[in-house]
């Protein structure tokens, strides 16, 4: 670098520069690829080499059998890490600014904390807390500090004081009729909730952004056809469609995620389209086009990131809908009863409500708080990411 003579815009030899071209990938893309490729290899190995009953990680001595949902979950986690979390560190100045805006909303900060707990619990929990196991003998154990009439429990783990079985720290939130530990159930339910949240959101966002931007940029009949299609998708009563699919094909977690993301992207697509159209009108987009940037570059560098910051809010508000839907179906006994979700737990305790309310209340409260937290978070993000508010404060 020449120190005496700093580079000046009017001394650039463009002929020389335009002859040299090279690929310049971003660290974010490299990161995602670096995690996705091994993941894909493991998945292929799992699928092609190992037989169905061998757990995937058996060769390395672990008993974890990675399923399709798990692969998707890991992939979306890497997307989250490299395209949402990493950029926050790459642009500290902007992060600080958003954080200042966000911090003003105190319930949202608390919500973020709670979601952090659910997130960490969902990822690490299954490795720390063993899955709840059936054990009829220790059914209806009360939560710690509470008690239950002796007649309901066959074996009381804690002390029996005055004919009432006392709760213990072995089952901090008590057990179900089948003796499954409620606390362990909630922790494992976090994983399910996180998987539902992350995977459906990623699928919805991908389809929504793709359809929305294509619609906005292609215009004409492509736009017309796509938006009519979105109309149809939006007219579907998702829950009923799911009932029908489940009635016909039976339901697992994967099916649930598939159906819900297949019917939930309509709103996102519409939103992205209108957002892209309004961003495309902005003068900075014209300025970029006039600089010679290709449509692809403009969309990738400017339209998509700007639309994304608004979509994040919208997606944040979609997640509680998925969690709620899963819980509703589980409650109706229509979900996959093998999945340790919060909804399953609630439905399991429903008939014992009058004497063992914790089986319903504990997971119900966790579900409620999680949905509440997502709503507060979405509300705060809306304010913090709102460009108009930025202009006013400037």
């Amino acid at each position, binding site marked *: *670098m020449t120190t005496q003579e*700093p*580079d*000046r*815009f*009017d001394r*650039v030899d*463009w002929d020389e*520069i*335009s002859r*040299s*071209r*090279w690929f*310049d990938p971003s660290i974010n893309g490299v990161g995602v690829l670096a995690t996705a490729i091994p993941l894909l290899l493991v998945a292929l190995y799992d699928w092609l080499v190992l037989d169905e009953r061998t757990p995937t990680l058996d060769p390395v001595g672990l008993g974890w059998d990675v399923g399709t949902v798990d692969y998707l979950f890991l992939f979306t986690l890497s997307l989250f890490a490299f395209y949402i979390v990493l950029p926050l560190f790459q642009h500290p*100045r*902007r992060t600080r*600014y958003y954080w200042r805006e966000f911090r003003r909303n105190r319930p949202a900060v608390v919500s973020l904390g709670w979601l952090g707990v659910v997130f960490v619990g969902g990822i690490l929990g299954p490795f720390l807390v063993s899955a709840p196991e059936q054990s009829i003998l220790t059914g209806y154990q009360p939560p710690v500090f509470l008690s239950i009439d002796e007649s309901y429990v066959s074996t009381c783990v804690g002390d029996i004081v005055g004919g009432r079985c006392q709760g213990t720290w072995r089952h901090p939130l008590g057990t179900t009729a089948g003796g499954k530990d409620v606390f362990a159930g909630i922790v494992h339910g976090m994983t399910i909730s996180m998987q539902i949240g992350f995977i459906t959101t990623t699928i919805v966002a991908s389809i929504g952004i793709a359809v929305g931007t294509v619609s906005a940029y292609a215009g004409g009949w492509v736009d017309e056809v796509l938006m009519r299609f979105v109309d149809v998708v939006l007219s579907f009563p998702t829950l009923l469609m799911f009932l029908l699919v489940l009635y016909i094909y039976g339901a697992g977690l994967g099916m649930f995620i598939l159906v819900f993301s297949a019917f939930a992207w309509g709103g996102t697509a519409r939103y992205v389209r209108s957002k892209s159209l309004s961003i495309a009108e*902005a*003068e*900075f987009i*014209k*300025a*970029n*086009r*006039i*600089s*010679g*940037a290709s449509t692809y*570059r403009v969309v990738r*560098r*400017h339209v998509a*990131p*700007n639309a994304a*910051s608004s979509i994040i809010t919208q997606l944040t508000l979609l997640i509680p809908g998925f969690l709620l839907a899963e819980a509703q179906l589980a409650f109706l006994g229509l979900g996959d009863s093998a999945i340790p979700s919060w909804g399953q737990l609630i439905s399991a305790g429903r008939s014992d409500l009058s004497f063992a309310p914790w089986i319903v209340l504990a997971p119900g409260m966790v579900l409620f708080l999680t949905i509440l937290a997502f709503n507060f978070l979405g509300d705060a993000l809306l304010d913090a990411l709102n*460009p108009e508010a*930025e*202009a006013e*404060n*400037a």
Partner: protein
Amino acid sequence: MTDEPVLSVRDLEKHYPIRKGIFNRQVGVARAVDGISFDIGPGETLGLVGESGCGKSTAASSIVRLEEPTAGEVVFNGNGRGGASRDPGGSHPNDVTRFSDAELKEFRRGVQMIFQDPSSSFDPRMTVGGAVAEPLAVHGMSDRRRRRAIVEDLLERVGLSAEDYDRYPHEFSGGQKQRIALARALVLNPDLIIADEPVSALDVSIQAEILSLVDDLQAEFGLSLLFISHDMSVIRRISDRVAVMYLGEIVEVGPTDGVFADPRHPYTEALLSSIPTPDPRSSLGGIELTGTVPSPTDPPSGCRFHTRCHRVIQPDGIDVDQSDWRGILNFRDRVADGRIDVESVRENAAGAAGTPTDEDIGDRLRAEFDIADEINDPDVESALQEAIDRLLAGDEEGAATLLSERFTTPCAATAPERTVHAEGHESSCLRHRSEHAVAADHADD
């Protein structure tokens, strides 16, 4: 070669199709830009002025092909493309409208734009340094440090500091953002900058600063400038030459001093007289334009300005007061559109004094259109009175027919040609018919 203009626009047109209904049938076109021609020489500033909606911004985006022009030719001789001559087929190798993608990208290094709204000029998620450096990256400068060095130097040149590189757009005031926009426009070292109302969102005091900065940079780097504004005083301050646009056409073009001192087109005259003079001793007034502003979907025939022109020509055989003539034509157009509600006129007249007679209403109508109570030409007077009578009798169609048969203007029949008044000063008005008209086709000059 020295006389070669940097930019030469010929008969540029941009028409927007108007579609309606379920099948998106095209039901018409909006002639936003309808055949404009002008040149900009090296280091020269051309001011393009006109009311909002006259097509000036569309012209700018068509020239740089942000939008594809419908027809016409834009020859760009900057970027070392100068000296080319026309192909035998008549097309020009430097015609922007025929550029391939690669040529277009190279052309973008030669022409840059500045926009009106400082608040939407920058990606809110990008540092201003990043935004200014973006064009460098687009054109393949992959060395980040080099980009940064260039941009920091440039930020200082436009009156900011190198430390501003890492700040975000919302941290700057409107005036500062326009400086940054100027830096972004300069970063590729273009030959021509198109500034689309760059100061109209700013305060006068800031306006003046930005204009001085533009002046200085232009002098230092020999830039050519196409400066678009609706503000005549800004245009006067910055331009070497002025082009006045009305409804998609350029009605007058000439050296700034010439046009301001001696406007030859009635529209320019009206525009100039509308600027409030900052002299407390002069009285309010100037030429008030009457009649309705036509839509570009259905521009008036002949001279497009004739529906509002205060100098609209009277045909042979009619010689009335000019303001009466304007009033009669306005009256005619309004009757023809069926937009005169006799009842409401009657009601309003009733408020003044009891039951209004037909005469009262007639007077009221005349007053509304600034027509004298009695026109000095008896033929005209009787025809007008006849039309008013028919209108009051409820025969709207009859009145319309009579008016349109009786009162016509040559301005509606003939499209005016360019007339040269002085060196480089031309305008298109039928009143100049007797003067020497230029040939309709423009050779390369």
